[in-house]
């Protein structure tokens, strides 16, 4: 087996060898996801046989998909942004306060969400790209700032009762042909929420951008080797700024989608989301060192992560702490795999 591999490596050119390594991470992720899901279908049955369970995973994690995409963009350029969870909480709190206490309309609340995300992205991007400060320190401060601001805006958690918003929150989009017959013999349609459509659109858009546009290719170049990117005439600072800006905006959109799903404002919302976003990106094959990554992989990463959480809770380990431990364990395993792969390449 090992010999075969070596021979294959030798036969391939250096470039092709690198390609297999990157896609190997993606293949591992997709395989892990299918094995897990099919395993759950076979051994746990219960909910996992219903298509709606899968759609519920999507519904619950639409916001995570969006923020994880932003995280992947930043990670591809070699940075990181751990403020996304805080931004999501701040966005949902601000929108909730605006809609409920000020009687605002839904359209303006979406603009508020985008503006908050844009502001965080722009400031952090400026500090990281133009002042060359470590992204982790900047976004750590951003995270604490967002969390602190959330409690300053409003302390107690509350549900939003704005009519237009509740109507939007309740909107369900039927997925044709995926319904099931329930116990009473009635046919129940499978559905997804609006957030899922937004998330899927963003995944497709970003996938195309990274693959076929100059800006997208620049991300990889900057993350792979900043010095050579500079020599190729790429505006490194602008590219890094742009990545952080996009990540901020996506966190804003993700925040609104999260808000749309939960329909309430609370300072403890989205706690640990930054961790889940980073974990999803890493599981999806994005390298922490930058230059390698795939939005589709991130999408599968989110699905794997949430499937394992679903499995954990459905085998009865429903104490909240198990979720944290499983996510951390999974992240740890994938980090080590990455590190070993990288070391082998050298």
């Amino acid at each position: 087996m090992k010999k075969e591999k070596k021979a294959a490596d030798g036969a391939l050119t250096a470039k092709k060898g690198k390609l297999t390594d990157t896609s190997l991470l993606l293949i591992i992720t997709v395989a892990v996801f299918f094995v897990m899901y099919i395993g759950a279908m076979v051994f746990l049955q219960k909910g996992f046989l219903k298509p709606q369970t899968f759609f519920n995973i999507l519904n619950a994690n639409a916001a995570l998909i969006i923020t994880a995409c932003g995280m992947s963009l930043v990670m591809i350029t070699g940075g990181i942004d751990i403020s996304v969870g805080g931004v999501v909480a701040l966005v949902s709190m601000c929108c909730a306060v605006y809609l409920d206490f000020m009687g605002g309309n839904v359209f303006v609340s979406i603009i508020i969400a985008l503006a908050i995300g844009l502001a965080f992205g722009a400031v952090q991007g400026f500090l990281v790209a133009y002042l060359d400060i470590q992204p982790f320190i900047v976004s750590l401060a951003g995270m604490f700032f967002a969390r602190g601001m959330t409690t300053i805006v409003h302390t107690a958690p509350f549900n939003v009762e704005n009519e237009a918003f509740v109507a939007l929150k309740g909107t369900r989009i039927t997925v044709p042909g995926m319904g099931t017959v329930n116990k009473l013999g009635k046919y129940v349609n499978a559905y997804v929420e609006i957030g899922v459509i937004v998330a899927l659109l963003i995944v497709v858009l970003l996938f195309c951008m990274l693959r076929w546009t100059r800006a997208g290719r620049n991300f990889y170049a900057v993350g792979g080797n900043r010095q050579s990117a500079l020599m190729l005439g790429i505006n490194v600072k602008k590219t890094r700024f742009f990545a952080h800006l996009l990540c901020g905006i996506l966190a804003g959109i993700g925040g609104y989608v999260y808000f749309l799903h939960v329909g309430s404002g609370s300072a403890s919302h989205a706690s640990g989301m930054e961790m889940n976003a980073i974990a999803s990106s890493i599981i999806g094959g994005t390298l922490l060192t930058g230059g390698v990554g795939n939005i589709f992989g991130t999408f599968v990463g989110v699905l794997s992560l949430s499937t394992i959480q679903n499995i954990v809770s459905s085998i009865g380990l429903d104490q909240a702490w198990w979720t944290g431990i499983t996510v951390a364990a999974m992240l740890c395993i994938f980090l080590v795999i990455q590190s070993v792969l990288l070391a082998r390449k050298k």
Partner: protein
Amino acid sequence: MADKKKTMGSGVTAIFRKQIFIPIAALLLLAVFNLIMDPSFFEISFGYNSAGHPVLTGNLMTILDYGSEVAILAIGMTLVTAASGGQDISVGAVVAIAGSVILRVLVGLGGDGTLQAPIIVGFLAACGAAMLCGAFNGVLVAVFKIQPMVATLILYTAGRSIAAWINNNELPSVTDETFTYFGGFIPGIPVPTPFFIAVVCIVIALLVLKFTNLGLYTQAVGINAESSRLNGLNPTFIKWLTFVILGLCVAVVGLIKTSRLSTINYSVIAKDIEMDAILAVALGGNVLSGGKFNIMASILGAYVIQFLTTTLYKFQVSSDALPAYKAVVVIVLVVISAPAVKEKIAAWGKKVKAQKGDA
């Protein structure tokens, strides 16, 4: 004439360049601010606590008390920062683990709060657990070459869950009075005990740095790991070692924290303390990307942070909103110390000087 001017100029800048200048300046700034706003901030009163022991109370005592926790963490955090060029953000979660281990060993599950084992045993067990966590972080960082902050993100998320799991999500409490001494007052001594614990830790740290090569090696690894390896050092081991030392510091803080309450609250204990510890290192003028360091400056920085926290509390800032203000301080600090900004300021300074010279 020109020479004299030059030496005078460099003399002034030398004071400004001294690393310890930053925390001292920040301390003076805060002290003057408080003096103007409300001089009663500095009052210290003598009284008796609920157990009947003599105690000193006042804002300064609070700073001395809680600042000591951060100071102990700052010792380890400075070393980690210097060696690995990153920070450990799992310290708060590992404090929870250490505290949980202490309580588990001392009173166990379903106990009535009486001590089942001597306190020292509980503390040693906590040291073991915290050093194990540090070793885990250290292996990820040093052996697998994962960025320190991402590697410690694992325990940052899972740590509090693990702490809850150690005690099966129960909240054991200690009724024994001696246990409260570590985070409170020893009978007859009116100064809070954490201060003495911090002094002991600082003395040990300084002795270790003076009589071993740890400090030198840490700096060498932080400045350039590859060339330190070529000079016969083992950068992997030194990075790992700094994380284990930080684990030890965390265990001490775990003891103080649990002793304060005689019990534990997994989700709140030592919340956001990693921010304070990193802030202390930054305020101490240490470069956050590794290399040269000054432990005393970090320790002073820790007390300055607590000064800031106490000041904010005095102005009715709620504890949940504190991080927002501290985040602003961090950003201001890193922006000032960013090379790009420093260059700009230096260029501007030169320009001003040149204009003066012309005049």
